């Protein structure tokens, strides 16, 4: 019986360590890309303790995946976003939507559309929320992503005027 108790208390610790390790690995490895963002609802940027945003992609070129006839282009489930560098910084790349196997071969970076679908959340400290909300209305905001070879994205940092938001405020 005691053995089961040991398993019972060790499993949560190991599980949390695995979660931390996986997240740490994802943010430290992979190619860095920076995508401009905008508030999901411009009237109400911060919902409680997190910023609700969406990516503002610089669409360019012809899509071959998703709703290719749509007037307003948007990431589609199951597709990949083909990122093409503008300059060397990885900031605000040109984007078009392709099938993932194609994007992995021909693009500078390939980002799974599923990981950027719908409203995204960025957690902020409650005592800085008001300052951040005001800054977001006046400055250019962007998210720095680390994208692994499979196209999965991990958020590294929220940038204001291309600087980490804690430094910029």
């Amino acid at each position, binding site marked *: *019986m*005691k053995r*089961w*108790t*040991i*398993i*019972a*208390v*060790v*499993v*949560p*610790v190991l*599980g*949390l*360590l695995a*979660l*931390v390790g996986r*997240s*740490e690995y*994802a*943010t430290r490895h992979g190619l860095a890309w920076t995508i401009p963002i905008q508030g999901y609802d411009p009237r109400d940027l911060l919902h*409680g*303790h*997190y910023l609700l945003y969406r990516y503002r992609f610089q669409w360019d070129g012809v899509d071959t995946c998703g709703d290719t006839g749509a007037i307003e282009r948007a990431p589609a489930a199951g597709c990949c976003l083909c990122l093409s560098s503008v300059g060397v910084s990885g900031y605000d790349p040109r984007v078009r939507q392709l099938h993932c196997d194609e994007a992995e071969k021909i693009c500078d970076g390939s980002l799974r559309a599923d990981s950027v679908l719908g409203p*995204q*959340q*960025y*957690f*902020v*400290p*409650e*005592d*800085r929320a008001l300052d951040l909300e005001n800054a977001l209305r006046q400055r250019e905001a962007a998210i720095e992503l680390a994208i692994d070879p499979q196209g999965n994205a*991990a*958020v590294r940092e929220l940038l204001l005027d291309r600087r980490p938001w*804690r430094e910029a405020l």
Partner: protein
Amino acid sequence: MTPEQAARIRGFETTEHRPTLLYAIAGLGGLAIAVGLVSIVAANWDDIPGRMKIAIDLVLVAGLGGGVWWLEDRGPDWARETAIGVLFGLVLASIALVGQVYQLGGRAHEAMATWTVLTAVLMTRARSSFAAVMWIFGIQATWIVWAVWIADDWDAPQLALASIYVAPLVCLALGRLTSIQRVRPALANTLESIGWSELVLCGTFGGFVFYTDTRNEHFDAAYPMIAVSTVLTIAIGAALLRGVPQRVLLVACLLLSHVPILVSPGDLDLLAAASFIGLWLLVAWAAYDTREARLVSLATAFAGLRIVAIYFEVFGTLLDTGLALVSGGGLTLGLVWLWARKRKQFERELGAGDA
């Protein structure tokens, strides 16, 4: 002695001789700590670097885990149960903390599933009803979050809605298993109580759908889950329940939870009222059959209250309402007299020990 009687005696012995107030206060303290930890994480305090927060959190989780291990043999029981409850909440807070620090984007269904998996073995070590309630509601919360995700991401709200009914059925089935009744009687009793309560609640609310026209709604996507509920109901009724009243009640809950939603043409006021009264009279019958005197009184009181409520919804004009209230008042007094008389009779039959 039947296995069911043995399980009831075992359940009584393991729960009734515990200092209930001590458990309640300790449980509330543990719950307050767990909720407080979640709240601290939600505040996302910025003065401590994220990785430092995670390191402190992991030390807390490991320390509390060590405490659970230490208390396993040495006791006291209430301290072990409280430590398990706090650790259960702390693991959820820790997952949320990792999500915040690494900006994992708030995928609540994945976080809840991770929490459920990581704490599953831990919660099987608990022996109190309080910990059982925490665990069952935690799993059900995970179930609901997944249902919401299925409704949104699969665009299948009907399927998600129908899946909700499966949760109390599973609780009831698990609570009736003799293997769980033997090893964790408090957990089995809690599973059965929560299962029955939620099934009756579903049936009660299902009856209210008779007021609404649902014929234009499309519930095709819900049929697979309704089939699962039907199969589970038949299996539980055939294999795990003993008395006829409980079986009838189980089938009534299934029908009332689903049929009105599928076929109601709306404005069936009397049928809505009759279904409510019928369901709660079935609850009273089942409670009478299992010698639960207080539940008999409660169920018959609900049925009586619903009869009184009919007056206020069925009649329209002032004259109708006046006449109805006069005759209805007389009927109510008659019902109260009958109820009081039958209640005393039931209590005599069920014995003072249960009342």
